[in-house]
Every structure is written in C-alpha cells, then in structure tokens.
C-alpha cells in the first residue's frame, strides 16, 4: 500500500496565487550540498580508489581523417606496469558499439576500428599501474596511418562528390527535413517587409571544470560490473549502457559520484564508460579512466550546435511579425549518436515570445571530420534565440520602430495563455511586457543613453543591448526522435522518482535518482519535505540512489529537475503524511479528517494539545502493527514517480509536434558594452537581467544559475569557439586556446525576478538552468551592434572575437554587407 505510481494532480492549495503562506518553498535556504564540497570531502570519480585499481589512458589520432594501416603495441606491452593494451578491434571483442539514437546507419565504437574520422578519435587504450606508466605506453604504440582528405567545411561536405565520412550513407547529409507549420507562403506574400540574415553560430563546448571519467570493475565469476562514474544518466539509460558493456542489465551497478559540472556534456559519456569497461574486462581488475583536458575537449560529447542560418522574418507595415523561415545547415561532426535531438529541442520555442503565425523549419544535419555534437546548455534553442532576436532588431531598424516597442507589439499577452505555438508546443504562462518594462527600469536606460552620447563625442563606442527570450523548461526526451516520420520509439514522459521514508524515530530520509551535478537537488527536496511536513529542511536526510534501486531519473537536462523533484517529492510526502494522519487519528480515536500535520506534529484540528509527534507515529508504524488501522501495512515508505506534467504526442503527419516543453520561463537582458573598433576588444560595463521562471523555489540558487549561465553566454558571445585548421586539425585542444571568461571579463550582474507561476506544476515552479546562456549571447550581439551603429556594423556571427570585430568594422567601411 505504501508504493504509489500515480500521476499527481496539481493541488491548488499549494499554488502561490492562493497560498502566500508557504514557509520553505520560496526561501533562500542555504545549500545542503555545500559543506562536503567546501571541505574537499565530496567524492568525485577521480577520487575513487579501489584495491588493485589500474589506470587507463588513450592514444588519439593526430589526423582528422585517416585509414589505420597497422598498429604495433608490442613495445607498449613490454613496459613494466602495463596490464593491457587494446586496439579498437580487440576492444570490440569485449564491449559493443555505443548506443545511438539515430535511425541512420552510423555505427560508432569508443575506439576506432580501421578508420579515424576526427582529430582526437581514440585509436588504442592502455591500463597500467599508474597514469604516468599508462601514458608512457600510449607513447610507445606505433600506428601507421594513410591520411585521407579531411572534410571540414559543412557546405562543401554537402556536395554529391564530397569525400564521404561514412560509406553506409549515400551522402554526408545524414538528415534533412522541411517542416511547415501554418501557411508560410501566403503569409510571406502578404508581408510588407521581409528581413533576412545569414547568421553563423560556431561550435562551443560545455567545458565543465571536471572532465568525464569512470571506474569500472568487472567480476568475471558472476559476470557483473560495478561502475562509478559522473554520467548523469545512470538511472535513465543503465540498460543501454549495459548493452554496450556486454553485461546483463540486472548485473550492472552504476554508482553516481559528485559531478564537477556538466552543462549537458555528462549525460551519456558512453566513450568513457566503454573504455573503462573494456579495460576492466581485459584485465579482471578495476580500472579508472578519467579524461585529461585534451581528451575532454577533443573527444567528449562536449560540443554544442554548429549552425549556418538563412533566416527570414516577414512583417506587416506596422511591425506585426507574421511568419518565420529558418533554413539551417548544422555541422554535426563525424558521428550522429544523438540524432537531430537539438532540432527537436528547437521545436519548443522557435517563434520566441511572439505571436508569429507560421513557421518553415528546414534543417540539414551534415557530417564532417570533427568530433560529434553532444549537448551543451541550451541544446539547440541557444542559436535559435540568437537568430530570432537578431531578426527582430533588424526589423526594428528597417521599419523604424523602436526595438522595445516592436517587441511589445508582438508579445503573447498574459490573457492568451496557455498559448499554442505554430509547431504545437504550448507555453504555460507569462507576462513578457512586465519583464521588459522592469528591465528597462532597472538598467536606467536614459542614463546609459546619455553616457553613450558623451562617449561618442570622445570617439568612444558604448552600446546598449536588448533581448527578450524564452527558456523552455522541463524537457521531454521525445524530442530526440520525433522529427522522424516513423520514430524508432514512441513518445516518453521522462519520469522522475524519489523514495521517501520516515523511520521509527520520525526521521525523514529521501533517496533520489539523479546525481549531485552542481545544482542543488538535496536542498530542493529538503525544502519540499519541510513544506509538506512543517519540519526544518536541515532535519531531512537526502541520499543518492545507484542504478540497482529501481529509481527512475532522467537526470539534469532541459532545466527539468526542480520541476520534477518537486513533483516527485511532494507526491511521496503527501502519501506518507496522509498515512501518518490515519495512524494518528486511529491512536487518538478520531476521524482522519479531523487531524492535521502542523510543524511536524499531527494534531486534532481546533485542539492542538491533542497531538502525536512524528516519532510516536513512526514507532507505531514500524513496530506496532496491531495498534495501527487494520488496512494499513507496517512501515512508512513511499516511492513516488512523477511523470512529465503535460505532454501530448506528435501528430502522424508532423503538422503538430505536440506539447512537450510547456513550462516556459522568460527573460529580458540588457548588457552595456564598450567596443574598441581598432583592437576589436569588447568590454562589458554592466549587465541587467529580469527573469521570470514561475514560483521561485530558492531565489539565491536561481540567481546563481542565471548569473552562471550569463557568464557562459558572455563566453559564447565573445570568445568560445572550436577552431579547425584546413587539414581538419583541432586548433583549440586545451584551455590555452579554448578561451572562457575569467573574473576579469565579467561585470557585476544585476538580476531581478518576476513570478508568473506555472499552472502545470507543483507550487507553480518552472526551470531556470539554461536561461542565462539562452539570452546573453544575442543580447550582447545587440549591444555590440548598438555600439558600432555609427560605423554601419551588423553582427551575425558569434563569437565576436577581437579579430572578427576588427573584420566587421573593416567590412562595414568597405561597404560589405
């Protein structure tokens, strides 16, 4: 009786509109996760040490594209301390190809067999007594390559006669699809103005400070494997990992470690799991493989979108946006493991916060000799926001309508929610004009305009940016495959579960299925339990479930976990609280309807001195079955699974992709920059953001997410980029070349919140994990534009490195578009 699998219905007593009386939800409770992290006592995967453990290292291809003619491992094997050296072919006898979400035949093994297709692809792997010796052994492996032409430029890769990356495909265009929603041709025909941009969003990477790693330990006697790792999907796809590792699903135990940042890059980490898995199977000893930084940058699934946009926005004379056309070439790199998922994701909000009536979305996913795309905070919606906001700014220029005004005219109005967008996704709630107005206010725009004028007189270029963007939150994994006509899989609800129990002394424990990945799952869960029982969040104990507990968790992704953990924890809390009310009522000889739970005490309504403590009920429930109501089983434990609160499957003709990402946050960012057109250096002078992510679970923690995301967005706008040479070599394999913002590049960021609760979720929460990075790049582009307007510059390519800015200024002077 104590296990429930029901989907909860949202209880309006908890909705903020009717209940301002919440005690813990909405408070900036200090993080429960902090002390162990601060003391250096959290266990990351690199800290795991098992008896007899070996260390792995990987030899990687120096070439972007080559045939492996021969590999001689004899000298490496002879080094004392080396326990195993495996080529791709040898590893393939121990582990299987990596699981793929694409329908196209693009097989990928963690260690290349016969041919390498990107610089840094693994060619051989080693296990040795320590990492130094393992790397010595890698250096002693002799590989003979026959270098093949490298396909670097995605547009050139599309030519019918281009060198093919995979013989199993007819061309390097792995996937192409045009989707029309509404009558695009008719809308464009009636438009007064069509603004166009050809925009370029280069590949950037998540670059968490901790690389990916795994410690795998194979037990040949019972054919089981234990894996410690920083994969975020140990309770989502352990069955897929088991298939790859050649272990039966019920004999794989995946133990989560503290994760030193992910930002999307540590969901799967299948390469790392397969490498550690093959080495432990080859040696019969535990093996730790932890990427070094070069491994991580060159071969992890770190890389985000890499897109060329041909985009058009059609408007009426008075600035009403009526139709959007996006033609996209996306450079996926050499493999297609996660299919076109980032375009499924982009279907959530391609038309932004505006009432745009029709959409044409034409996408070509192209293969080249680069590491494959993985996921990075934003996951496809990031370049979408960039391009849409650039078009809106351009329309404002061409139609002579102020850029705040043109946005205001087109915003979906508060009374239009829930709002169905052209592709079918539904937005839950929002008040976009209020967010814009507040942002203009806190930025003190007039003051900055005056400063701009003053500086222009001195020949200096100050710019004020503006962007108003969506952040779709609470993702549904169907997006990975629903652009296929015949999806290999049906729609999913991407569930999350928790197990809550109250022990015999009244102590509350919650076991969660997601890992500790840098956000605050323990704090969120404790706040919800505290809210439901009226106890102190400090008294709640939260632990992490390994993959053998039956926990379900899709991990952090698509800004979902605060929504999903709130739902699962509230459901489990209510189940147990109700049971405790029944037990207390029985003991106090009352009707359960007359008993309430207040401040962790179960008491008679209207007569609070008649009461029982959590411990009294706990002891009775655990030990004294005969003193509890007849229909109750002993114990106080509930597993609650919370399915995605609102999703509908796509229509068969794909004219309606369904609701799949309906908790939609919104933000307006106003960055202030100064640009030196001679050196191309862009300096951020100030930054203002107003954000609405529904009910704030914990304002301080939300602000932390937003500021951290904005700083990654500053990186996206100004410096972050994977660069490749003409021969396909990776020019940015370390942090010396791949630049990220430091304290020096970042201003003090001012953040404010408005709260429009979601009608679909518990407490009205929405997600907030990606918003900073989803808005900042396009806002900063708009600021640089504004600064360099006197020079005629139009920004349509990120990052705006000094070289690019100087080039844009020179181009504008020469009258280039």
């Amino acid at each position, binding site marked *: 009786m104590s296990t429930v699998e029901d989907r909860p219905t949202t209880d309006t007593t908890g909705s903020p509109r009717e209940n301002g009386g919440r005690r813990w939800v909405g408070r900036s409770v*200090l993080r429960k996760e902090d002390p162990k992290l601060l003391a*250096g006592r959290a266990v990351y995967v690199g800290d795991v040490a098992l008896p007899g453990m070996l260390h792995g290292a990987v030899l990687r291809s120096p070439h972007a594209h080559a045939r492996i003619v021969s590999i001689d491992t004899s000298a490496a094997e002879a080094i*004392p301390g080396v326990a195993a050296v495996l080529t791709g072919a040898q590893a393939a006898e121990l582990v299987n190809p990596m699981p793929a979400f694409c329908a196209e035949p693009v097989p990928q093994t963690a260690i290349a067999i016969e041919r390498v297709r990107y610089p840094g692809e693994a060619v051989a792997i080693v296990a040795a007594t320590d990492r130094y010796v393992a790397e010595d052994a890698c250096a002693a492996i002799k590989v003979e390559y026959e270098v093949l032409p490298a396909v670097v430029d995605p547009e050139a890769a599309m030519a019918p006669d281009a060198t093919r990356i995979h013989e199993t495909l007819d061309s390097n265009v792995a996937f192409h699809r045009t989707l029309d929603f509404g009558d695009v041709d008719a809308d464009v025909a009636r438009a007064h103005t069509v603004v166009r941009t050809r925009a370029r969003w280069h590949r950037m990477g998540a*670059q968490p400070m901790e690389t990916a790693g795994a410690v795998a330990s194979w037990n040949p006697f019972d054919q089981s494997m234990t894996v410690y790792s920083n994969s975020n999907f140990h309770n989502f796809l352990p069955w897929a990992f088991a298939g790859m590792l050649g272990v039966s699903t019920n004999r794989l135990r995946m133990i989560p470690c503290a994760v030193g940042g992910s*930002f999307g890059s540590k969901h799967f980490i299948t390469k790392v799991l397969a490498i550690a898995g093959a080495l432990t199977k080859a040696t019969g000893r535990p093996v730790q493989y932890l990427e070094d930084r070069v491994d991580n940058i060159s071969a992890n699934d770190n890389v985000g979108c890499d897109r060329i946009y041909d985009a058009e926005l059609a408007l009426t004379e008075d600035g009403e946006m009526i139709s959007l056309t996006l033609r996209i070439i996306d450079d996926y790199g050499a493999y297609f493991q996660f299919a076109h998922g980032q375009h499924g994701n982009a279907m959530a909000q391609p038309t932004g916060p505006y009432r745009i009536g029709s959409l044409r979305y034409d996408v070509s996913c192209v293969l080249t000799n680069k590491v494959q795309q993985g996921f990075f905070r934003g996951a496809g919606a990031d370049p979408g926001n960039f391009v849409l906001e650039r078009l809106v700014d351009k329309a404002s220029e061409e139609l002579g309508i102020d850029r705040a005004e043109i946005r205001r005219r087109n915003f979906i109005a508060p009374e239009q929610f829930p709002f169905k967008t052209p592709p079918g996704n539904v937005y839950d709630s929002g008040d976009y004009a209020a967010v814009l107005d507040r942002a203009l206010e806190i930025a003190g725009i007039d003051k900055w305009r005056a400063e701009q004028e003053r500086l222009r007189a001195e020949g200096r270029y100050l710019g004020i940016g503006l962007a108003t963007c969506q952040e779709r939150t609470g993702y549904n994994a169907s997006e990975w495959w629903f652009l296929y006509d015949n999806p290999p899989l049906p729609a999913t609800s991407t569930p999350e579960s928790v197990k809550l129990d109250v022990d015999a002394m009244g102590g509350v424990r919650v076991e969660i299925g997601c890992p500790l990945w840098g956000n605050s799952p323990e704090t969120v869960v404790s706040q919800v339990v505290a809210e439901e029982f009226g106890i102190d969040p400090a008294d709640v104990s939260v632990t992490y479930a390994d993959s053998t507990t039956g926990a379900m968790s899709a991990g952090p992704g698509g800004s979902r976990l605060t929504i999903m953990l709130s739902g699962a924890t509230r459901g489990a809390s209510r189940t147990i609280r109700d049971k405790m009310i029944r037990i207390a009522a029985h003991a106090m000889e009352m009707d359960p309807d007359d008993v309430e739970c207040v401040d962790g005490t179960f008491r008679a309504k209207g007569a609070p001195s008649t009461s029982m403590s959590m411990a009294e009920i706990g002891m009775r429930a655990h030990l004294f079955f005969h003193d509890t109501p007849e229909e109750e089983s002993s114990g106080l434990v509930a597993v609650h699974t919370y399915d995605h609160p609102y999703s509908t499957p796509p229509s068969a003709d794909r004219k309606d992709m369904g609701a799949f990402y309906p908790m939609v946050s919104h933000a307006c960012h106003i960055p202030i920059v100064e640009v030196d057109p001679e050196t191309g250096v862009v300096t951020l002078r100030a930054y203002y953001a107003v954000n609405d992510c529904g009910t704030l679970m914990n304002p301080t923690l939300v602000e932390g997410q937003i500021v951290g995301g904005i*700083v990654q967005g500053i990186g996206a706008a100004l410096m972050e980029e994977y660069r490749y040479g003409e021969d396909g070599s990776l020019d940015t394999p370390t942090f010396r070349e791949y630049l990220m913002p430091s304290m020096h590049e970042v201003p003090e960021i001012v953040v404010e919140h408005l709260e429009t609760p979601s009608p679909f979720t518990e407490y009205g929460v929405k997600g907030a994990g990606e918003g900073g990075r989803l808005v900042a790049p396009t806002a900063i582009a708009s600021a640089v534009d504004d600064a360099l307007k006197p020079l005629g510059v139009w920004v349509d390519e990120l990052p705006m490195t000094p070289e690019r800015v100087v080039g844009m200024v020179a181009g504008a002077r020469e009258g280039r578009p």
Partner: protein
Amino acid sequence: MGETTAPEKIRIGLTVNDVRHDLLVEPRTLLADLLRGDLELTGTHIGCEQGVCGACTVLVDGTATRSCLVFAAQLDGAAVRTVESLAGADGTLHPIQQAFHENHGLQCGFCTPGMLMGACELLERTAEPDPDEVREALGGNLCRCTGYQNIVRSVCAAGRTMTADRNSTATTTATTTATTTNGAQA
C-alpha cells in the same frame, strides 16, 4: 606499486597540513598527484594539468601554487597546506568556507578548493580586500558554474568576519595567553 620499475627515486621530507612525511618520489611526480594519490588528499582537484584553471591551487610555504606545475621532488623541506586543513574535525567550517556557504560561492564545488586556497593567501596579505582586489588575486582561477560574483562576495565577506574575529580575539588574548591555531593562518 611493485610492478613498476621506476626511474631512480628521490627522498624528500614534506610537511602537509602540519603532518611531516618522509617520501620517496619519482622525479616526474607532480605535487598534485602526490597529494591526491599517495597522501589520499583528494580535496585538491585537477582541471587542466597545465596551469590554466587554478583548481589545483595549494599553499606552498604560504604561497598559492598550482600543484599541477610543481614536481614533488622540488619541495624537500617545504610546508604544504591543502583544503583539508581548513575545516575543523568537528565539522566547523573555516570562516572562508563559511562565507562561501553563506554567499552561494560554489555550485559543483570542483574549482572551490583552489578558490579557497587562493583566498587564504590573499587574506593573509590583505585583510579586507575590495572586490577589485579579489578579482585581481583570483582572476587566474576558472569557475564554469558560478559566474564569479558570488565568489568575489564570499571572499570580501570572509575578510570582514576574519577581521572582526581577530579584533575580538585580540581583546580576549590580552587576558589569556594566545595558543596556536589549527587550519590556515588567519
């Protein structure tokens, strides 16, 4: 590990968090690996192994040092302090740690030990740094999560509390005799 025929090892004496170790190290062993491996002090993290990120920062004779850029063999006679030395055995956080906790100066915690040790050095030099001084001192430490401003706030706040603590201790120790402190020198 017995299976390895190592190059000739070097004998060093190293004091780590007030504990003296006599060690035989390979010439190429980095301080970061010695701390994390042989000494099992895994609080020091490795983010890049090439001196760019600062995650591996420890104090060597009081100076903030990237432990991925120093060979252990260079450190005979040195005193090293790592993040493990900061909190008390009873779980009391050091004032710098407490300030990071109260100002949400960390998310994933991977850069944090390096930030804390860098902050220790700064506060030793400048008791109450302003935000610019913090950005100057810790500007070489990367954090991918926080966006930095809460780290800056944390360090400034720590400076203030530690100064206040010192002032009140100074009054107390006027009557009792000062004793030694464990943890980073405040």
